[in-house]
């Protein structure tokens, strides 16, 4: 049983990491698109951010020094990531459900980190972890684990309820959407039950991670706990394969699209990329485009099929 649990944990983590990285890579290597920003752009001059202005508000803007205000971006990004600010502002009803769900997941991710630290420290310095530091750490990850799990489950139930009862959402809800939320609930529910219903001799969560790190095949993992871990590992592997990987997508929608106001200067890296794209050979079929798979975008854009034609 322990080997199965280790394998599931390892595979789940690996698939999560690889699939997330692959998705990020897919977006990152996409061509630089035409500009499509939306204001306000928070890395602008703070005076401009107040009203959503851009450098286009300055006379002879190309002669001025450009602003890149990282603090401004962080002021928007951090509350957005942690507290789902946009949802709170524009869809409060859903935020009451979505925020606990997401915040619960963040806390659970933090809990996993703490458990991992405790496991490694327990192996490296058992005496230290047997002392007050170990006790404090145990308290922290227990409290965060309980809080995270409770928030995530309450949020997931709220989201599921809303998805199934709100007429505005129902039209767009697929079987997969319902399954996704149920998957969270079942995986977290079984894991919670597995942890709570352990017998006195069963390994702790930290001991389990230590077992994984030392590949201790003698560890006896109770069935319910093993099922919870396997389900959570499957969930971790599943998330980046679905739209729920929006934690990756969102980075790009914000940084590469909404906030990408980077100017194409002569001789810049952007210009070099554009010059490459202009050699692509499209094959759109409409006659006015004049694309035959041989002509490049540059050919097409610099050809005026109607020049000299009579009105």
């Amino acid at each position, binding site marked *: 049983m322990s080997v199965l649990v280790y394998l599931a944990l390892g595979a789940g983590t690996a698939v999560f990491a690889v699939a997330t990285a692959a998705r990020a890579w897919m*977006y990152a290597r*996409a*061509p630089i*698109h*035409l*500009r*499509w920003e*939306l*204001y306000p*752009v928070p890395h602008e001059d703070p005076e401009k951010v107040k*009203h*959503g*202005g*851009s450098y*286009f*508000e*300055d*006379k*002879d803007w190309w002669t001025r020094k450009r602003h890149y205000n990282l603090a401004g971006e962080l002021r928007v990004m951090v509350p*957005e990531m942690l507290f*789902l600010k*946009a*949802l709170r*502002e524009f869809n409060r009803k*859903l935020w009451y459900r*979505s925020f606990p769900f997401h915040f619960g997941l963040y806390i659970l991710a933090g809990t996993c980190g703490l458990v991992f630290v405790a496991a490694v420290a327990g192996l490296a310095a058992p005496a230290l972890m047997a002392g007050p530091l170990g006790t404090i750490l145990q308290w922290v990850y227990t409290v965060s684990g309980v809080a995270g799990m409770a928030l995530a489950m309450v949020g997931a139930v709220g989201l599921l309820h809303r998805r199934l009862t709100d007429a*505005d959402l129902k*039209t767009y*809800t697929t*079987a*997969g*959407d319902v399954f996704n939320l149920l998957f969270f609930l079942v995986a977290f529910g079984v894991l919670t039950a597995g942890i709570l219903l352990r017998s006195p001799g069963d390994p702790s969560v930290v001991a389990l991670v230590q077992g994984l790190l030392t590949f201790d095949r003698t560890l006896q993992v109770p069935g319910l706990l093993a099922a919870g871990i396997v389900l959570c590992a499957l969930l971790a592997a599943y998330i980046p394969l*679905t739209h729920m*990987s*929006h934690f990756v*997508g*969102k980075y790009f*929608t*914000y940084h*590469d*699209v*909404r906030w990408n106001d980077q*100017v*194409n200067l*002569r001789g810049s890296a952007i*210009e070099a990329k*554009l*010059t490459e*794209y202009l050699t692509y050979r499209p*094959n*759109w*079929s409409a006659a*006015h485009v004049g694309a035959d798979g041989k002509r490049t975008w540059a050919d*097409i*854009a*610099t*050809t*005026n*099929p109607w020049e000299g034609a009579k*009105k």
Partner: protein
Amino acid sequence: MKDRIKLTDMSRQDRKPLTHLENEDLMPLPYPLDSPEKDHAWAILSEKVTGSVECGLDDTCAINIPQPKTKEEEDELVRKFLAGLDKLFTRENNWTFLQPLVLSMEHCAKCQTCSQACHIFEASGNDELYRPTFRSELVRRLYFKSVKHGGALSAWQHGDIEINWPLVARLAELAYRCNLCRRCAQTCPIGADNGLVAHELRKLFSQELGINAKECHDNGSVLQLKVGSSTGMSSLVVKDNIEFIDEDMMDRTGIKVETPWDVEGADVLLIHNAGEILAWPENPGAFALVLSAAGIKWTLSSELAGYDSINYGLWYDDAQFARVAIKHAQAAKKLGVKKIVLGECGHAHKALSVIADRVLTGDLNIPRESSMTLLRDIVMNGRLTLDPSRNAFPVTLHDPCNLVRLMGVVEPQREIVRKICPEFREMEPHGVDNYCCGGGSGFAIMSGNNFQDWRFHVSGRKKMEQVLNAFADCMDPSINKYICAPCSNCKGQFRDMLAYYDLWNKNRILYGGLVELIVNCMVDAKPGFIDWEWH
């Protein structure tokens, strides 16, 4: 209560419209448009139209797709549509928007946060067909099914869709029920963009099937590339008209104006939306007067497209967009000007300043600037002697989406209006949170069949509400009121809406540009430049 439209209804085989709106269904308007029964009845599509073109979506028809005669024709059109859909997701064909499109396909959480931000959805009385995600969700299902070759598992996860000609025909129309204002995208917690999806759908139809709005293509970008302007004016005609405008300016202001043409090495190449020259000649006239009075070394260009800043490709076709943008840059390059300044036209601003920024390379990459900043510089630095008391009437400012939300030019025009209009009041919301005038993305020039009825009742409704609220304290017809709309397309929409609801005659609400307000309060000019009786 009406039945809620389902996504699957889009594939319905009959040609009956999926929805029908009555005035009572629509978002209520404030006084004096507060009784739906007194509102105009909608014109009904003629049997000739319903029997010959595809209009199975709603009460109107924007792009007149001829009905296929045979099943084979239908199948061929569907095949082409799917081929075009594939192309939208390839680098070679769509490097221009591939990344944002894929992101919007992959990550929508279907939370519907964006819905309430959309003026069309709200004005329609929350009709499901006009929900921002309705269109996107259909495209998303097509993406997973056809582009990603999803099987049963994918259909279970992402939802299924029956692909047939009625779906494709309805989607083509539905792409023209969005102003591309991207207000919805601003509220999306994920950053998905339903406006972009509509834009890409329009591109697919145009670039693959040659289906587009006649007003934007044949009478728009094609005409511009053929004769120089979508107004049909050749360079000779435009010069004649400008000469006439110069003379008229002299009569009206007492100041001699001579518009310079093709001045090599000028500091500024000013490009107007040529529609101004025909529909609102006082606008280019006022520009000529202000720039000359401020001592700017400026010029107009008589090159092909060099005297018309419009670029309708922005709304439906990348190839047409790039061709026109290059023509604009070539006109500037030929004259060797220091910069291009865009007149009062929102989409032209965004097209040439923002979008074309990644089309123009090398020596075609000539600096482009907004006339808002240039005018702000002139007004705020005291280069003209102005008397704001001449503008002592209620003024509100419309924010063209392309100029404001999509380009970040928010304050320059406000600084001017605050300085020269003592009774200025904002619409709510305003700035980057503004609502589209309802004419965005080509609607202001589209009037085929009964499209105007839809445009007035639905897409323009929210803006009308804002205008009426802004002037709520002075609706009395004894008080002249002015909507300052520094954009030709928005002005077109205001002109038509105000006329439709007779708001000039009944309540004295006029619209116009920004530069006219400047000339109206120039001490050196004869008083009364704004012509309240002309509308």
